[in-house]
């Protein structure tokens, strides 16, 4: 069995049924070939983290799943439906939500408009009261311009707005980047609480210490491929390897 497949087999800790299957995913930015055959699974209700150095292809993997990379090949199955050729609006309506690395807060919209912008795509989204319970700061800043919020508040807003939509599969791209430790801790609590609520989360993180507090499983991405994978229980045994992979 090739090493990648073995790594996947090791990593597969079934919590719920298979919700996302990515097979031989390739992606291109113009002429640049970024992903060279990514393979991994995500099970319902778990938090899976993609780890890897800058430029390894983690963000491109999320964007490919979301359908916002122009050229993709391979297979992405979500809830047993092939979505490799679907447009991003259709993918969103199937229940996948994406929180981009740059947060994507709209400067021409106030906080309330930013929060209410993504349409409800299916039942089961969090009501506003519950969102304000998770992020009390947002309630006080509803009429502020979205980009006038602090970095931490913008990140909370970026996560909060996809929770209303009813999407059950959340993809968070580096949610802790550039944030103060106290805010990172709050985002960690939020992810743990979302997991308890039954959300499935695919996380991209460079902050391994943060990821280890929330993730059930890890995949390591390098040069556009998954090169290893393990569960949280196997983390201690894989620390040396992981340090080598991440160059820390």
């Amino acid at each position, binding site marked *: 069995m090739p090493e990648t497949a073995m790594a996947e087999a090791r990593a597969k800790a079934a919590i719920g049924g298979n919700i996302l299957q990515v097979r031989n995913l390739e992606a291109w930015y113009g002429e640049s070939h970024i992903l060279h055959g990514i393979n991994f699974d995500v099970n319902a209700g778990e938090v899976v983290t993609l780890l890897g150095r800058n430029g390894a292809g983690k963000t491109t993997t999320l964007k490919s799943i*979301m*359908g*916002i990379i122009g050229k993709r090949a391979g297979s992405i199955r979500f809830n047993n439906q092939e979505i490799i050729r679907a*447009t*991003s*609006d259709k*993918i*969103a*309506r199937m229940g996948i*939500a*994406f929180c*981009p690395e740059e947060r*994507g807060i*709209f*400067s*021409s*919209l106030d906080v309330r*408009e930013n929060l*209410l*912008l*993504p*349409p409800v*795509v299916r039942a089961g989204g969090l009501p506003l009261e519950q969102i304000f319970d998770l992020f009390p700061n947002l309630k006080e800043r509803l009429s502020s311009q979205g980009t006038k919020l602090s970095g931490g508040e913008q990140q909370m807003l970026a996560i909060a707005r*996809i929770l209303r*939509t009813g999407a059950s599969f959340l993809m968070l791209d580096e949610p802790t980047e550039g944030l103060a430790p106290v805010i990172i801790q709050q985002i960690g609590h939020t992810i743990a609480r979302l997991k308890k609520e039954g959300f499935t989360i695919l996380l991209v993180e460079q902050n391994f210490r943060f990821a280890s507090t929330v993730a059930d499983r890890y995949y390591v991405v390098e040069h556009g491929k998954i090169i290893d994978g393990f569960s949280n229980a196997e983390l201690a045994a894989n620390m040396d390897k992981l340090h080598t992979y991440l160059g820390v």
Partner: protein
Amino acid sequence: MQALYAQLLVGLINGSFYALLSLGLAVIFGMLNIINFAHGALYMMGAFCAYFLLNLGGINYWWALLLAPIIVGIFGMILERTMLQWLTGLDHLYGLLLTFGIALIVQGVFQNYFGSSGLPYAIPDQLRGGMNLGFMFLPVYRGWVVIFSLVVCLATWFLIEKTRLGAYLRAATENPTLVRAFGINVPRMITLTYGLGVGLAALAGVLSAPINQVRPLMGADLIIVVFAVVVIGGMGSIMGSIITGFALGVIEGLTKYFYPEASNTVVFVLMVLVLLVKPTGLTGRAA
């Protein structure tokens, strides 16, 4: 003094057309990033549409106010779907050249069939006559044009700035990829926005028909001034387009009274001054 008021009224009426047309241009530029040079031709099509509806179908002015923007708006949406959408992501110049070409073709076709002289379009019975305001005589139709344009402009501003649909439009102007990833069909929204902008131009055409007659080149005469209005107001600014449209109409009218020789150039002089002092326009945002 009566002459001053009369020129002010003329200025307000011209300002109404400037505001409606520049508003449509601003909506289109904001969403599609296209400088829609076909706007004048689409304005002319609105007037011709009203003319055809009346003379071929016996459909009166009031129905034309509703139907002409819809019909020309659909024509605009077909243009967007078949041609303009392929320019997404390209330099502004491509959109400008394509829409300029479309304007020349549309105007050429109408000129071929209807010549250059104007076709009459009567003022509807309900809006004939005038009112003596004491300090001036106000033709009812002209008063109607000013008020109706103002209402349409403010309604459009409200739609874009204060509603959920407007929030989608504003967000998609900033980051269409992310808005689409939220589940909103952005390409369809772009088509409908172009249809809205074109519909506003057609509406201005219908309003103009009883005042200026229906002529194939009526849009070509107006569009250069309207572009100056948009540049002064700031490309993409909704309220800026409305205020600048009405204000420049009034300034033009006042110039006609105080210094008639400069009345045709005052807008362009202002445009040069604004470009020198604030290149993004009075209310525009930096690119």
